[in-house]
């Protein structure tokens, strides 16, 4: 049958294989799912927490038939998920959306919060091939600098720059500060960004100023995940279907909304 009615969209239930605490606020959940295990970095899945909600989550890793997502407890659904243990039942749909292109030149990744999850997945693919792989990572405090040791192992030596708002690790500033310096110093082929949208907006502005190619993974309120309901639109694009990864050229087209506003659950525009 046609694409919307492929097996990839069908809800299937699976058990949580393992739960790993990554930080005081973030846990990684692993499931067995053959379809999601074929996902590429940047793609997402819809996770059904029975009787609670169904939410979009970026894929953090695939291994064999296993898929992992990293989830920060921020709302009802994610808090309910954080209380779940291995063996409990959840539902999955996906993988959905497009993925990052795999550029093998001089790469900089800019990550914030759980936005580091898809970047870690990407870094694993790029580590062996990229000419240079650097990372600027930001968080409120040291314990929330997700996956820093993994990134350290994957990136070119001495190429991970951390910034915390409280100065508990690395530089005491926002990630965009060292980014600006980095961009002045190094010639890059591609910037990949994932994290809070105001951060992405700043990365975009800095990259645009220098004409550097960029891809960013965006997040929006999502319902259907398959491009129908219109909840996740940014400009003419549907984040679930046309994204979640957008190129600098596409981000340029949605400049009026990027890092500024999104649609709320009632379809009203709300500030980010």
């Amino acid at each position, binding site marked *: 049958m046609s694409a919307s009615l492929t097996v990839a969209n069908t809800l299937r239930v699976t058990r949580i294989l393992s739960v790993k605490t990554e930080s005081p606020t973030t846990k990684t959940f692993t499931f067995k799912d053959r379809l999601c295990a074929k996902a590429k970095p940047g793609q997402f899945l819809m996770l059904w927490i029975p009787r609670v909600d169904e*939410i979009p989550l970026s894929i953090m890793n695939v291994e064999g038939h296993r898929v992992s997502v990293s989830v920060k407890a921020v709302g009802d659904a994610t808090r309910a998920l954080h209380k779940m243990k291995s063996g409990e*039942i959840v539902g999955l749909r996906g993988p959905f959306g497009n993925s990052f292109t795999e550029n093998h030149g001089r790469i900089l990744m800019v990550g914030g919060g759980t936005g580091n999850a898809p970047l870690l997945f990407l870094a694993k693919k790029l580590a062996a091939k990229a000419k240079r792989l650097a990372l600027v990572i930001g968080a409120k405090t040291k314990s929330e600098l997700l996956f820093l040791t993994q990134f350290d192992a994957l990136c070119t030596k001495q190429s991970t720059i951390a910034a915390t708002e409280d100065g508990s690790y690395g530089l005491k500033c926002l990630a965009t500060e060292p980014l600006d310096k980095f961009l002045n110093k190094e010639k890059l082929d591609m910037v990949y960004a994932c994290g809070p949208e105001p951060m992405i907006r700043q990365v975009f502005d800095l990259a645009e100023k220098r004409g550097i190619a960029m891809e960013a993974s965006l997040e929006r309120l999502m*319902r259907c995940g398959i491009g129908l309901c219109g909840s996740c639109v940014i400009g003419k694009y549907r984040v679930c279907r046309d994204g979640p990864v957008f190129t600098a050229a596409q981000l340029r087209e949605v400049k009026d909304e990027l890092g500024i506003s999104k649609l709320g659950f009632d379809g009203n525009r709300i500030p980010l």
Partner: protein
Amino acid sequence: MVNSFKRSFISVKRHTITPSKAKEKTHLGSNPLSTSLAGLHLRNPTALASGILGYSTASLQSIAEGGAGAVVTKSIGLTSRIGYPNPTVVQAKYGLINAMGLPNPGIDEYVHEIRHAKTVLTVPLIVSVYGFSAEEYAKTAQKAAEAGADAVELNVSCPHVKETGSEIGQNPKTLATVVKKVKATVQKPVIVKLSPNVTDIVELAEAAVEAGADALTAINTVRAIAIDVETAQPVLSNKRGGLSGPAVKPIALRCVYDISEKVKTPIIGCGGITDWRDAVEFLLAGASAVQIGTAIALKDPAVFKTINGGISACLKKKKLGSVKEIVGLSHRS
């Protein structure tokens, strides 16, 4: 086949050629897909169905660029609603079941979007409205019309929100009250979207037409449920939802066929249309135009171009000059 099409065309003239339409045909020149209904001029007989995308001007414009002849917004009410929690969509075999819960910003906010959309869109903008009373339908429709909507479509058939939608559209008297009230308030064409979740859809169609409906859309989704075996739970947060997609097409087609046998008011066919053949079937059953929704999940907004291309090719093959010539052809004796 060509001959049989032509023969049947001649035998159903009453359905297709009226003096005004004949005039318009000359006026619009050689576009065989152009048509009109309820006073709306369409560059082709395909429109976006309500509920799909349809909040923002940019989304509606991307659908128009995808080739749609008209766009219908999400259903808008008097006040805003956040809708139901997820899951709001679940896949069934050959279709989707959804219960969104009519999320919308409310008409007072949405009028800004309507005004903006009207400065951008070059195809008719139809605003879908719902209400919890005849007065609410009328007030919402009036505000939409005043903001520039080219027509309003009354959602009297949403299967998953209490005290509106199909609870109005399942009762001929309530339906007639709503349609009359809206017609008395609004100067723009009023389209009534019918529910298939009734014993006799023709009875409702006739009630809507007698109350003044300028066109009918048939059908809204078919009431349905999905239950998960492992958790022994309905999947949708609202438990029940509405089924759309290829699974409902034969039902929708039958509804259009039945209505068109009894009612002269133009019908917009809707339900599971995925390719040009589906669309032509609806036209043959008596629909003057069709709406497409779920298929966008399969083929993106360009599905409209693909379907229109197919309809064009079909007309050419049958040596027919206008899509209007095939409307209702299947009713020949």
